[in-house]
Structure formats: structure tokens, C-alpha cells
């Protein structure tokens, strides 16, 4: 039931993107995601699209993975598109009762959908090509300067590591409990929204109990392995900035500058 969610999963490899430092990848992704929202012309979209596809090819990952990144989020994409299509004023293209589709609305809807798709694809590339531990390492390093103002960089990173580690386990568990309760006649699919929310209780209670039990046991296991917070901790794989990182971040900055120019010139 739930085994086709791939968001947040890492696929090992040795491509250009795999070799980039996680910090560089996080910075590059952040800059690019902001840059996507600067695009407002076909040329700019073309550029963003081309760069995204280029990055996808650079990752040397099968393209089907890109599709599986978008698939679970298609409702959100369609919903966003719909809202823009139906609510933006402009020249009417089609009218039926209160429903009024305008040229402006259609353009906005398609633009928003394209932005979301590029955003999902690009950030999926980050998680696909970066092992969760390196990702959280990167976040930890990037947040470290903010520790003096009270940002618990190490703790946040550890929480993310554990969350990523347990997502597949808890998905399996959810599947198992759903099946066990279905076998006792539970119904998770029909009924009104309120009824369905109520029907989730037999799933959620065991799931929470299990998650707490796991957390408890994990805490003991971590303590037994001498974990005592981030102080004096070393890492097996120290982060290192190399030429690939300069090229990667440089390319994203270049694209962003071009996009800013296009936006400014309103092309």
C-alpha cells in the first residue's frame, strides 16, 4: 500500500552530483529553488527546465526515479494549478456558471505547476544523490555558525538522521497494522471525512505506541554506544570542499544571475 514512496531516499553512485559536498549541494539547491520563482517568461522557464534536466542527466540516475518523486505530490500540483486557473482574473476563455477560466489564469496555473515540478525534481536530486548522514552533516555544518544564537545544530541533525533512518521502518509498520486492522474489519477508505478520521484511530494508536517504544529502545542503544551529544564527536567522513563544488555552485549562481537579468529586463 505504501511501498512506492521514494521521497527522501538515497541512491548510491559516483556521479558529479554524488561527489559534491553536501554543503555545496544544499546551498546550490537553495539558491536554485529561489531562482525558480524569478522565472516569468517562456525563455526563463526553458532555461530552468533545461538546467534541471541537465542536472538530472548529470546524476546518472534512472529517469523513472524523477517520476516517482513527482507522483506522490501530484495532488498538490493539480490543486495549486487549479486554484490559479480558477481564481486569476483576465480575459475569459471558458465560462460555465461560476466557473470562469481566463487566459491569465491558465498561464499562471501552468507556470505554478511548472515551478512546483522543477522545485520537486531539483530538491529530490539533492536527497537522491546525498546519503542522509552526509545531508544532515551538511546541515549541521551550515547551522554551526548559528549555535551562538541558540540553534541546536547537532541535535537537529541527529533528529533528522534518525527520522530518515526510521521512515522506511515506520512505513512498513503502518502497512502491517493497516492490514491487521483490515483483517478485523476496519475500513480506511470509505465514509465521510470525519468518519474516516475516526477510523484512523486503530491505526494511529498502535503506530504511536510503536514509535515511542522504538524511540525508547533506540535511546538506550545509543547510550550504550557512548553517545553523549555532539561534544567531542568526530566523523568517519569529514566534509571536504573540492573543485566539483566550485563548479556546481558556480553553475547555479551563473544561472541565477541570468534569471535575474531576464526578470529585470522582463523578457
Amino acid at each position, binding site marked *: 500500500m505504501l511501498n512506492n514512496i521514494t521521497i527522501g531516499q538515497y541512491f548510491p553512485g559516483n556521479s558529479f552530483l554524488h561527489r559534491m559536498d553536501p554543503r555545496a549541494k544544499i546551498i546550490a539547491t537553495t539558491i536554485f529553488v529561489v531562482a525558480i520563482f524569478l522565472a516569468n517568461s517562456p525563455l526563463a522557464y526553458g532555461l530552468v527546465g533545461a538546467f534541471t534536466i541537465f542536472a538530472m542527466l548529470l546524476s546518472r540516475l534512472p529517469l*523513472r526515479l524523477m517520476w516517482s518523486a513527482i507522483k506522490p505530490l501530484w495532488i498538490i500540483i493539480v490543486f495549486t494549478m487549479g486554484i490559479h486557473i480558477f481564481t486569476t482574473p483576465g480575459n475569459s476563455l471558458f465560462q460555465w456558471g461560476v466557473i470562469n477560466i481566463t487566459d491569465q489564469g491558465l498561464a499562471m496555473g501552468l507556470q505554478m505547476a511548472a515551478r512546483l515540478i522543477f522545485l520537486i525534481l531539483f530538491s529530490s536530486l539533492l536527497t537522491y544523490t546525498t546519503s542522509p548522514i552526509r545531508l544532515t552533516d551538511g546541515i549541521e555544518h551550515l547551522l554551526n555558525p548559528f549555535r551562538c544564537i541558540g540553534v541546536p545544530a547537532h541535535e537537529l541533525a541527529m533528529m533528522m538522521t534518525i527520522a530518515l533512518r526510521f521512515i522506511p521502518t515506520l512505513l512498513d509498520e503502518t502497512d502491517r497494522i493497516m*492490514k491487521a486492522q483490515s*483483517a478485523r474489519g476496519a*475500513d480506511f477508505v470509505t465514509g465521510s471525512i470525519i468518519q474516516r478520521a475516526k477510523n484512523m484511530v486503530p491505526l494511529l494508536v498502535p503506530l504511536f*505506541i510503536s514509535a515511542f517504544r522504538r524511540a525508547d529502545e533506540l535511546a538506550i542503544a545509543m547510550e550504550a554506544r557512548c553517545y553523549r551529544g555532539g561534544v567531542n564527536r568526530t566523523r568517519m567522513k569529514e566534509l571536504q570542499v573540492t573543485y566539483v563544488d566550485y563548479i556546481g555552485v558556480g553553475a547555479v549562481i551563473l544561472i541565477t544571475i541570468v534569471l535575474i537579468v531576464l526578470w529585470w529586463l522582463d523578457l
Partner: protein
Amino acid sequence: MAIVLDNITYTYGVGTPFEKTALHGVSLTIENGEFLGIIGHTGSGKSTFVQHLNGLLHPTTGTVTVNGVDISASTEEAKKMRHKVGMVFQYPEHQLFEETIAEDIAFGPKNLGLSADEVDERVREAMKFVGLDYDTYAERSPFHLSGGQMRRVAIAGVVAMNPDFLVLDEPSAGLDPFGREEIFEEIIRLHKEKGITVILVSHNMEDISRMASRLVVLDKGRIVLDGEPMDIFNNHRDELQAVGVDVPPVSVTMEYLREQGLDVSNRVLSVDDAVQAILEGGSHVK
């Protein structure tokens, strides 16, 4: 009354790159009143197989009928038949969720649409069957019980649906010998007294050999052996070893004694049988 699996194939993730066939053309008839043991190593397709028995999974090709009704249909009748097959998963205590034991056991019967009185009666009966005193335990929280007791509550929750068939997946996993004994006594009683057809999935060959009247061995999504446990353990050892399944320890012992030139029968399923076989040794061929 029977569960009939006719040439079922099951493929995970059809149409995706992760496509994987877990069952290949499996046919099996489970007759009413049988005590069927299912063995196979992890990944042999066992759990996919049992999930077909009550429609948690529907075959990609082939049909599963319970008492003649195709349970993949979306009719009321098919739904009713699916509920005739109870399913106790591994570590069933992990599915408990209600505040009291009685309420948790009542979950299944309530979903069947029974009246409050009927539900109450089912709960009392199920608790009695798994050896939990109603007056003592009904209003207690299931989460304060011992592991073995929690498991009995979970089994009671399935028994309360009055199934004709009961599938149990490793019901003794993680229990100590005492707990294991209690659970199996209960299962034997369900089989003998309530006449429930039991389908037991287990790694524990001792338990299977002691209880099952018929044994099915799965490997790579196919049925490789199907027959009487004694016959399979004694005459198909090579096949069992090839598919990574152990022979019960007592069979191993008797086989070893025979190999050492001691004339004893290997038709034993328990230690008591073995003692008997040794005492009668040398005479059974005469």
C-alpha cells in the same frame, strides 16, 4: 467448506520498475477441519501467500474462493467470506489500541455490524477461550499486560469474529517456552473444540510436526512439497535442506541413531515418541 486457490500468481509493483513476482501459479485446496502447516524460509513467499487467504492481497492472476465465493469481488457476500478467514499477524500485540481489553476484542465483532448484546457475548466467549477471566481483565488496559497475555488478547480479538479459518503467522515468536506452550494449547483447543481450520505459518519445525495434519513447503513462490508432516520430514530431507528448511530436532536425533547402526524407527514427532521408538527398537522390523 474450503479455501481454494486456483493457479494464483502475485506480482508486486505491476508496471513499475520494481516489479517482482512473489507467487508463481500456486494452487491449493484447504479443506475444512484441516490443521495446515506452512513452512519456507524468509522470502519464500509465505507471507504474500497467507495474505491472499483473506483478501488482504488479491492475486494478479488466478482466483481465491472461500466456500465457493470469489473473495476478490466487491460484493457483500465476498466481504462476508473474507471475514470468515481470521488473520493473526506476527507480533499481533502491536495492533492493540483500545483503552480496555474488552473494547479491543470487541473491535472486530462491531465491524461485523453485530448488536451490542451479541458483541458482548462474543467478547466473553473469546476471552474465555484464550484463558482470560472476564471479570478480572475486561476493564483493564491491554498495555499493562505481559507480552504473552497481550498476544492472547490480540488473538481473542480475531477469534471473536468467529472465523471458520484462522491463519497464524509465527504466533510464538519471541515468547519463552512457557508462553509458547500456552499459545499452542489455545490454538489446539480452537482447532479441536471450535472446529476452526488452522493455517499455521512457523519456522519452528517442532511445533509444526507436533500439531499439523498437513504440511506445505514454499520456496521461491512455489509449492515444493505438500503432504503429511511425518512423510515430508522422513522422506524428503534433501529437498527440505535444499530450500533451507530445518528438520525437527527429534527427527535429526533419530536419524543420527539409525546412522550409527541403532535399529530405531524414525517415525517420531515428539520426544515421547522417540523414547517409545527406542524401547521398541529392533522389534519393528521383525
